[in-house]
């Protein structure tokens, strides 16, 4: 019964979610739970002179008040740079300084107001480029003392939390041979994940020493591990239970508010302490997407081949970089996107500032760098008079190419050229369009950014009816992992999908280990573990069957739920709980299959050159195209159509993968044209911490049409050939939009998001409708620098004239 993988199966968690039965953390209401509240720093950078909690402690109904001196403990995933509560100083507005647990919300809020903190203000810095200079204030003077994983390279006594370098070939000589050199700068602002469910956690500390945490998290095992380190406990003392998660997009990866609830719970043993963040707190006190300042300089020959490139990414990590340093690393080994460039100088540098904490966000750095890379490719194509699709075909990776780290691309790596052609065909690339309407295209590549030892495991346990309970700890955060795992399990066991019951909401006491639900890694990694667990179960039953048939296990054939040898056969249901002979004696027993998977052969990049023959487990490539019009009076964009194609190796479930594609496109569109977290550089305060002022796409904003298609170049070590795609779908959208806007108006916007104001200002600057060819852009929409004395790109009208 091999018909589960590739089936348009409905979600296994759908029924719980449409009936309102699915429980999220806030829906858990243990009797007598205390309400927790956090006191946040009002300053972006200040010394903490004193904290007086006396009045708060005396308030009736207050059960615990804690601050840094109670728990002077650090946490962090890749770079252990953050205290649970600010200690010597605060580093961003919104940083937790103290917390209370009280009988009810009102009392907790009153107690927060009674905590007196005296600060001595320090000079803040909000600019990572300034932060790299010697004159900048040091945000982490003890950087050199922090523990970090080996793949991270902080620079002691600076604000640089990580510096990843790519040095490939000889860029200097190659630039000299170039026909044309173009250099541009781009900027990506901080944005917010805006999961519909804010962060929440409940902690219970018992007198036995046992700590239990219910958390809205993407990584229950990582939460447990980091918490054990942070509180100096045995891992076994801590139990993390993860109910349904109402959207993560990276913000619930790693560890977040859990230690605060535990610290409070330790002060009131036996009582549950519940902390659910408000929407305002969600917007800037936990994590956001990092900002990035980008410079790309490319040298091309007359045929359009890129000979040399310099890519410089200066990341605004915000106040802490426990997770952000790995985004810096991921951007480093992916430095030039999906292109084959022999001579490369790449620098990805993460810098501390006094902005909100940057962390993982769907795409993990790739959406940010592709904003620049994919516009630069379009700019180069235009400059050479080559069609942007053709230009990408000339330069994109193909079998035999070596990517930025020197890894060889093979026929199994994934086929970006097919994706590009499919998207071009879907959009009708080259078709004639009315004035102010145009197409734009962008490519994407991404690898799962995870430690080389990140591992997944799964358990398949049989029931009396020949069905199974499938256990794993990949978190269902909306992406459909429960359904995909059920399909992989059913396909491998050759049993109907309905026979698989997913026990997918992890409890670290009972569930098999999973590193984290991040990086689009579950279909690949957890999927492999599930497949191996099912294969292990079959193998065990083959051995038992062989004993019954009196043959070697290798001679037993398993097909569609039946073990057989020549004319003898036993059904799965007869053997999965032990095989009973007619006289009553029984062999075998309840079958439990187990599997684990860790990507093989991944090697850390060389710290000086970035070289690695295999820096990551795999790559997923894709392309996205946009058809849009711009209103010349208002600058408003109407997106008519977005088409995307990804080479996913194998589509496990068409229904859920389409959901990932459409959802990613619209989230990418939000980042592309609407979203930006605005920090007031006087006060350090976020000026738009609500859904009123920070707009995300509604049903009225979505593109008029979206299509998604998939190429299936099998990943050799993927389950049924599959590789990940969850994040990739939002990576190329902003750049594709910007490219289309340029084609439609002649305005090139390098500073995300693409707003009507920027478009209009650029259009007026270009003064399209007058004859004045000397008009200059008012907005710094471009800082294009080129050799050979040609005029700046954006003061030219040739693109429109060509039409």
């Amino acid at each position, binding site marked *: 019964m091999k018909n589960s993988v590739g089936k348009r199966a409905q979600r296994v968690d*759908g029924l719980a979610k*449409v*009936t309102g039965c699915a429980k999220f953390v806030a829906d858990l209401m243990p009797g007598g739970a205390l309400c927790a509240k956090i006191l946040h720093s009002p300053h972006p950078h200040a010394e903490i002179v004193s904290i007086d909690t006396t009045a708060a402690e005396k308030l009736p109904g207050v059960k615990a008040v804690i601050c840094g001196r109670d728990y002077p403990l650090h946490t962090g995933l890749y770079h252990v740079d953050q205290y649970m509560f600010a200690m010597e100083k605060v580093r961003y507005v919104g940083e937790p300084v103290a917390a209370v647990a009280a009988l009810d919300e009102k009392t907790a809020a009153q107690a927060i107001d009674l905590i007196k903190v005296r600060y001595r203000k320090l000079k803040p810095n909000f600019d990572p480029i300034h932060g790299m200079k010697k004159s900048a204030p040091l945000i982490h003077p003890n950087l050199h003392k922090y523990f970090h994983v080996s793949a991270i390279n902080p620079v002691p006594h600076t604000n640089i939390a990580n510096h990843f370098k790519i040095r490939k070939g000889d860029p200097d000589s190659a630039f000299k041979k170039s026909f044309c050199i173009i250099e541009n700068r781009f900027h990506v602002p901080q944005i917010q994940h805006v999961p519909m469910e804010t962060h929440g956690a409940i902690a219970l500390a018992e007198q036995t020493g046992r700590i239990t945490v219910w958390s809205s998290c993407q990584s229950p095992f990582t939460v447990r591990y980091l918490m054990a380190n942070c509180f100096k406990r045995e891992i076994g003392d801590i139990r993390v239970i993860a109910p349904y*998660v109402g959207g993560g997009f990276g913000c619930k990866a790693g560890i977040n508010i859990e230690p605060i609830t535990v610290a409070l719970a330790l002060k009131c043993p036996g009582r549950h302490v519940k902390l659910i963040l408000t*929407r305002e707190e969600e917007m800037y006190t936990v994590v956001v997407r990092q900002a990035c300042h980008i410079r790309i300089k490319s040298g091309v020959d007359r045929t359009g081949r890129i000979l040399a490139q310099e890519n410089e990414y200066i990341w605004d990590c915000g106040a802490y970089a426990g997770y952000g340093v790995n985004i810096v690393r991921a951007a480093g080994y992916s430095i030039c996107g999906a292109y084959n460039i022999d001579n490369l100088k790449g620098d990805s540098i993460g810098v501390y500032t006094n902005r909100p904490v940057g962390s993982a966000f769907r795409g993990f750095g790739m959406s940010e760098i592709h904003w620049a890379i994919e516009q630069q490719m379009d700019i180069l194509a235009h400059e050479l008079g080559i069609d942007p699709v053709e230009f990408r075909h000339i330069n994109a990776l193909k079998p035999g190419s070596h990517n930025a780290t020197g890894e060889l691309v093979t026929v199994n790596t994934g086929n970006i050229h097919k994706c590009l052609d499919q998207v071009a065909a879907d959009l009708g690339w080259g078709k004639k369009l009315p004035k102010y309407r145009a197409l734009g295209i962008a490519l994407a590549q991404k690898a799962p950014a995870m430690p080389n030892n990140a591992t997944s495991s799964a358990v398949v346990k049989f029931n009396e009816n020949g069905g199974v309970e499938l256990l794993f700890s990949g978190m269902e*955060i*909306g992406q459909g992992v429960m359904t995909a795992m059920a399909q992989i399990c059913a396909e491998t066991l050759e049993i109907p999908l309905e026979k698989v019951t997913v026990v997918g909401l992890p409890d670290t006491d009972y569930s098999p280990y999973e590193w984290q639900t991040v990086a689009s890694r579950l279909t690949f990694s957890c999927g492999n573990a599930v497949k191996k667990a099912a294969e292990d179960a079959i193998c065990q039953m083959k051995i038992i069957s062989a004993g019954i048939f009196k043959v070697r296990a290798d001679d037993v054939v398993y097909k569609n739920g039946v073990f057989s040898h020549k004319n003898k056969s036993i059904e799965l249901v007869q053997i999965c709980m032990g095989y009973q002979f007619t006289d009553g004696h029984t062999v075998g027993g309840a079958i439990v299959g187990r599997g684990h998977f860790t990507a093989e052969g991944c090697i850390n990049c060389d710290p000086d050159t970035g070289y690695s023959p295999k820096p990551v487990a795999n790559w997923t490539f894709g392309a996205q195209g946009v058809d849009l019009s711009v209103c010349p009076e208002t600058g408003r964009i109407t997106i008519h159509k977005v088409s995307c194609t990804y080479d996913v190796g194998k589509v496990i479930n068409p229904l859920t993968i389409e959901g990932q594609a*459409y959802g990613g496109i619209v989230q990418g569109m939000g980042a592309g044209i609407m979203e930006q977290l605005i920090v007031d550089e006087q006060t350090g305060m976020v000026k738009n911490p609500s859904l009123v002022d920070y707009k995300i796409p509604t*049903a009225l904003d979505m593109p008029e049409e979206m299509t998604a298609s998939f190429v299936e170049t099998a990943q050799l070590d993927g389950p049924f050939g599959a590789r990940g795609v969850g994040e990739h779908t939002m990576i190329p959208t902003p750049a594709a939009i910007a490219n289309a806007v340029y084609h439609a108006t002649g305005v090139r916007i390098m500073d995300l998001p693409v707003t009507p104001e920027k478009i209009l200002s650029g259009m007026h600057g270009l003064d399209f409708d007058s004859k004045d060819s000397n008009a200059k852009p008012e907005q710094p929409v471009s800082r294009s620098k080129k050799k050979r004395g040609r005029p700046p790109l954006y003061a030219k009208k040739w693109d429109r004239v060509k039409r």
Partner: protein
Amino acid sequence: MNTVSVTFTINGEKETRQVRTDMTLLKFIRETLLLTGTKEGCGEGECGACTVIMNGKAVHSCMVLAAEIDGADIQTVESLAGSGELDKLQLKFMEHGAVQCGFCTPGMLMTAKALLNSNPNPTKAQIKEAIAGNLCRCTGYKQIIAAIQDSSRGGRK
């Protein structure tokens, strides 16, 4: 602490309760009636996760005081399959892949239900307009709109 007595119908059953005058309908539904299908996404009337049907209209329950519901008829997501059978909307949401993380789903369903009750055959534009106050960060709305359209009278079987 001021309280008032309110008599209301919740998912078809009549009840009388004392409620605090500062309590929102959302809090009352979740914490007093323990109907946790209705979600809080912002508490400020901006996201729609807390949408319930009050006297036939979709409302943000975080923007209504519990004290206001005297005499009102309230339906939450739990009412949709109250008869023991799933509502057509629930089936179509599953069939079309209109559910991902599921946090916006109850509110989205109640908005859709109120729309179809008042307009059994809405156009795509009317559906978009109706759910514009219900934010979803996962799906990109396409499959939600398809599910609602397919649930309408003119939708395919």
